[in-house]
């Protein structure tokens, strides 16, 4: 699996159009100078050999150095992953909290006004382009009201998030923007789940036995939790790798921002390293979610 991921990462970066030398030479450098530099960076070798060298280094924990900056890719990616992880985790928690709330409300009161309101909010969350939402948030809360900062991860352009109030202010807008889609997806999923569970016989039986509504609710939650959790896990994975637009709009120094930079600079080692780390992260996350699911719902284990 990991080897497959590494091959795809390597090929994706190399198939993309453009020349990595663009980032490190004036565009009108002569062909001779380009050839010298191509040889110096090893881009003149056949692709399988380049892949072999890269893989060997990766297996030894070395993702190479960024062409554009000369800095080790490992340190660049590690810092960015940390920033993306914290942003994605907070966004997922907000999305999960709001999504389950709206989902339960809609599911419990299906067909009513509350259901419609909750459904409108969740559909908006899924449908509104999040980069557009981000820009609107910036215009309203940063430019017009001046309440929150619009770019960076902390004061003075800080690229490292720290758990203090100053840095928290920088996270609010990107996290809220990022939570819109998971909120919508989780709300719709939970609504359908709750509606389905409430129509099942065992709920009727519980109520017929005279169980209190709160106790019934607990049963509904237990039945809905595994699926909701799986959806949350997937959303966390998507947010980690798929937040290029939001991180770019807010100049949040995470993996999305780093990927965007690497793509525009044709910084192949940085591109390969970031994609590889994200892909492996996604695989690991799915594994963790699978394990958690089976721990919560014994039926999955039996299956």
């Amino acid at each position, binding site marked *: 699996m990991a080897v497959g991921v590494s091959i795809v990462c390597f090929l994706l970066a190399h198939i993309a*159009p*453009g*020349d990595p*030398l*663009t*980032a*490190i*030479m*004036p*565009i*009108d*450098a*002569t*062909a001779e*100078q*380009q050839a010298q*530099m191509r040889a*110096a960076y090893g881009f003149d070798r056949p692709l399988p050999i380049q892949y072999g060298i890269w893989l060997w280094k990766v297996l030894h924990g070395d993702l190479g150095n960024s062409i*554009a*900056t*000369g*800095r080790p890719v490992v340190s*660049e990616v590690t810092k960015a992953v940390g920033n993306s992880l914290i942003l994605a985790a907070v966004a997922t928690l907000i999305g999960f909290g709001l999504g389950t709330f709206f989902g339960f409300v809609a599911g419990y009161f299906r067909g009513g006004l509350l259901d419609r309101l909750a459904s409108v909010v969740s559909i908006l969350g899924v449908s509104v382009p999040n980069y557009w939402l981000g*820009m609107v948030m*910036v*215009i309203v809360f*940063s*430019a017009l009201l*001046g309440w*929150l*900062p*619009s*770019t*960076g991860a902390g004061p*003075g*352009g*800080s*690229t490292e998030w720290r758990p203090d109030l100053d840095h928290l202010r920088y996270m609010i807008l990107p996290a809220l923007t990022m939570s819109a889609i998971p909120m919508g997806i989780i709300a719709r999923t939970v609504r359908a789940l709750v509606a389905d569970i409430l129509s099942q016989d065992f709920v009727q039986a519980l109520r017929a036995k005279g169980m209190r509504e709160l106790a019934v609710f607990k049963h509904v939650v237990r039945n809905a939790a595994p699926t909701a959790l799986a959806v949350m896990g997937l959303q966390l994975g998507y947010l980690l790798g798929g937040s290029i637009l939001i991180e*770019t*709009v*807010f*100049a949040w*120094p995470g993996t999305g921002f780093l990927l*965007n*930079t690497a793509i*525009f*600079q*044709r910084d192949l080692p940085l591109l390969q390293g970031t994609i590889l780390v994200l892909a492996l992260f996604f695989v690991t996350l799915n594994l963790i979610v699978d394990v958690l699911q089976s721990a919560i719902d014994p039926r999955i284990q039996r299956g």
Partner: protein
Amino acid sequence: MRRFLLNIGFALTVLPALHGVGWAQGILRIGMTIADIPLTTGQTDNGGEGQRFMGYTVYDALINWDLTSATKPSGLVPGLALSWGLDPNDPTKTKWIFKLRPNVKFHDGSTFTADAVVWNFDKLLKPDSPQYDQRQSAQGKSRIPAIASYRVIEPLTLEITTKEPDATLPYQLTFILMSSPANWEKLGRSWDAVAKSPSGTGPWKLASWVPRERAELVPNPDYWDKPRIPKLDKMILFPLPEVNARVAALRSGQVDWIEAPSPDAVKSLTEAGFKIVTNVYPHNWTWHFSRIDGSPWNDIRVRKAANLAIDREGMKELLAGLMVPEQGFLTPGHPWLGHPTFKLEYKPEEAKRLMKEAGFTPEKPLVTKVLISPSGSGQMQPLSMNELIQQNLADVGIKVEFETVEWNQLINIWRAGARDPSARGATAINFTYFILDPFTALIRHLQCNLAPPNGTNWGYYCDPEMDNLFDQVRNAFNPEEQAAILSKIHEKYVNEALFLMVTHDVNARAMSPKVKGFVQAQNWFQNFSSITMAP
């Protein structure tokens, strides 16, 4: 009382002058368009913007650009060289003598001498020298193609020998920035260490630097050019590559100045009280014609018709005024403009007449393909601009099909030339040019021996008369004589409509009304020393 007032007056006026420092006036925070802090060791990366913010701030070249005027194109002024010229005893006209500026100190306290210049050239050109730096060489070597050798004559006298007579050498040297040999030695001969603590001779010192985050520059109070000692306390640079993020950062007060706001944002920024500062600068937005066999642009009537068909004022409206319509290949008012007889005006009827003469009409149009990009450094708003041109050309009988390729791919195609299969049969390429000096402005596009792979004469244009003019430029060591020949070249560019000449960008930047004293030079590079921040 009188003595008290005199003392106050003395303290306010004389003491700062004695120290060579004006009153420090605030902190300026700038949002750059680049994604990282430019290379700090001397030869910067990240193109013109890198050199603007980390080159001419921390470092000097032997010959600098005069960045003091907003009303005329920048000329050359002495930098670390006081004077330069051909060795009068050399009949080959390849030996240059440079008299260097005395008493110049690097930021680390070491003295600038001719040895330092040789050391810096070796850093870029000699792979076997201990200080050779691949990253700086990649940026700098291609800028000084004329240099064959160099040596120290005296501590403050340097000799440079060119491969052949080349009067454009002074322009080439403006790109080469001098870093401190002593600093490199002190930091263990490590360029990585120098990157964290660089030392140049420039008006600013790099105080601190965090990759991808910020760079803080503080004034160099001992700078040799006293009027260019910065007035600010500090200048902080932030990489903000996304245009909306830059605009948001300005509007929310996180920065005081942003480079390149989008035209869409100009109106709202102005209404919100921000200043939009623009000026013409050596940039042009063109279609570079292919001149290989079979290209329709080999017919001068077609080239002229296309140039007369473009509604440049309409385009200016499209770009919210952020452009200067081209009157030639060079910027309006440029000393090498000359007096072209062909005027770049919007005359569709005249264009139709020329096309008819060439055998085409709007009903039976010339059909051709042009390479464009959806975005790219210096490309302005290429899709909407090209669509307007497409409409304009269709009106006079030129039906253009666009082949849209990603910017980095377009650069590769541009390097490969019109004959390369990667050009996909296109007969023109939409490319923007840095047109700062004789080579980058005029020679590199059209000299016969600079066709790919030797250079960037994309269209394989070759005209012995033009080549002869280029040779004359390289052999004209008197600036007035050289300017006269460059004017002839430019006249030929325009009179023969050698490019589709559309517009010049205006290097827009948006800034808080608190920013005072900035003079936007007609150059890619700028002087930040005159700036102050109002309280």
